[in-house]
């Protein structure tokens, strides 16, 4: 059993003419890697009619609808995070309820609003009520604002996690750019923050530092935009961990924080 906790799919109303090929490529590569379930999100229109990290309410809904359609098309293989823009508080809450009712299993917060902002509190409260995790896009050690996103770093996510200690938060793509060591220091003592291993970074020493910081029980395997790097990290982990420990990272930790029955073997 292998759960990818950080996947994305494209759809027809995005700037990518090759959206179908990319989706097929993800599923084909996933079959080779042995991925049992892709837990995915769609960030609105991926920039076509509103910015990727600041999706309009209409694009949020269209993106989530596209993901629900994929979930229906591949009921054994694809699960969804409902993506919302917290600046539209009422729509965000309504969209979360709608998509969780339709079978999604988590909430995706990209970079529309800083993670420690009070606007995220009602979303976290809803996550607690529905017992789903929140995947938060993170810039590892954000030293300044970056164009196109209101990115958060681990310190800001930990502030939110401290206000909602019963909610499981997933720190996105530790290998996705920025100073991962800063993040690992920040999350060490925050037990409800889990580290997702996805991202294009395959730095020597990063996985050892992850294990040292949060231990094997708070690591989640994922890929994001580069599945080859995800597979590389999985292979390297197999040389560091026992079979039982690897199973925690591969799927058992995910099964613990996602709703019961979210995965086939759960």
């Amino acid at each position, binding site marked *: 059993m292998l759960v990818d906790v950080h996947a994305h799919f494209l759809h027809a109303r995005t700037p990518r003419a090759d959206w179908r090929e990319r989706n097929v490529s993800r599923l084909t*590569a996933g079959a080779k890697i042995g991925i049992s379930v892709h837990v995915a999100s769609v960030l609105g229109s991926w920039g076509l009619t509103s910015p990727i990290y600041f999706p309009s309410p209409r694009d949020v809904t269209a993106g989530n609808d596209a993901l629900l359609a994929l979930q229906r098309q591949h009921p054994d293989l694809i699960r969804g995070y409902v993506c919302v823009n917290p600046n539209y508080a009422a729509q965000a809450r309504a969209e979360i309820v709608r998509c969780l009712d339709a079978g999604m299993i988590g909430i995706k917060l990209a970079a529309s609003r800083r993670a420690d902002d009070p606007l995220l509190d009602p979303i976290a409260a809803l996550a607690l009520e529905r017992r789903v995790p929140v995947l938060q896009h993170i810039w590892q050690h954000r030293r300044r604002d970056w164009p196109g996103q209101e990115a958060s770093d681990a310190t800001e996510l930990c502030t939110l996690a401290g206000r909602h200690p019963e909610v499981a938060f997933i720190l996105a793509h530790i290998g996705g*750019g920025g100073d991962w060591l800063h993040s690992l220091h920040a999350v060490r003592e925050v037990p409800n923050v889990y580290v997702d291993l996805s991202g294009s970074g*395959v730095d020597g020493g990063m996985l050892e530092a992850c294990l040292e910081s949060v231990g094997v029980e708070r690591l989640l395997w994922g890929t994001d935009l580069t*599945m080859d790097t995800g597979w590389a990290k999985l292979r390297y982990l197999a040389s560091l961990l026992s079979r039982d420990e690897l199973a925690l990272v591969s799927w058992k930790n995910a099964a613990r924080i996602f709703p019961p029955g979210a995965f086939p073997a759960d």
Partner: protein
Amino acid sequence: MRIDCNAFLGAYPWRKVPGTSPDALLKALDRTKIDVAWITHLPSLFWRDPTEGNAWLYETARKEKRFKPVPTVHPGLSNWEEVLSGAANAGVPAVRCDPLYLGLDPAGGEMRVLAAACGAARLPLMLAVRLEDGRQRHPNDHVGELPAAAVRTLIRSDADLRLLVTHADRGFIEEVHFGSTPDEARRLWWDICWIWGPPEDHFETLLGTVGVERFVFGTGQPLRLPDNSIAKLDLLELAREQREAIESKSIQGLSS
């Protein structure tokens, strides 16, 4: 046969990296079924005279037949021609010069003179676009990334020069390849460590557009996990001869 043309030994100044000793690299080669590693002495890339690390590199490679030394040449230092001829006499597979790490203009006179000398000596010249992701570098690590324009300038500067460029992504490779004549492009080789696999499929696209024969197996280890370059190949549907070309045949052709 699998040859890693892009491996390092020794400590990295900007962060803690495990597995930088010769013994640790050998264990990594065993684990990942890599037969041979072309090695560079990593610490001396940051020294004022990077060639002071070459003696240790030669000595280390002499003790271990799976290591092939890739010494550094600094064309801004007065002894660089001796360093280059020493490398040629030692039978190294390539020499390296990372101009921005040495404070040199990457397409300036010193680099062009080195390019001509490497061409005359029939020694491939290796350059890295970067060693680490620009988003995560140490606040004091301000070395720029190698510009694609510099690679185009160098490959045009000498008709006998052969370049091996490491840590390049799809955009960089396309810009240089399609900004070169077919003859120039035939004298360029690219290591695969920084190219994305699925679902974006940059590597598969490049194999179709640039050609399998232009790509060689490299990892950037121990700064990067060597497993990544292997995973990238395993995710492709390659004919046996294509995989052999990438893993060993093309690099053997380059260095012969």
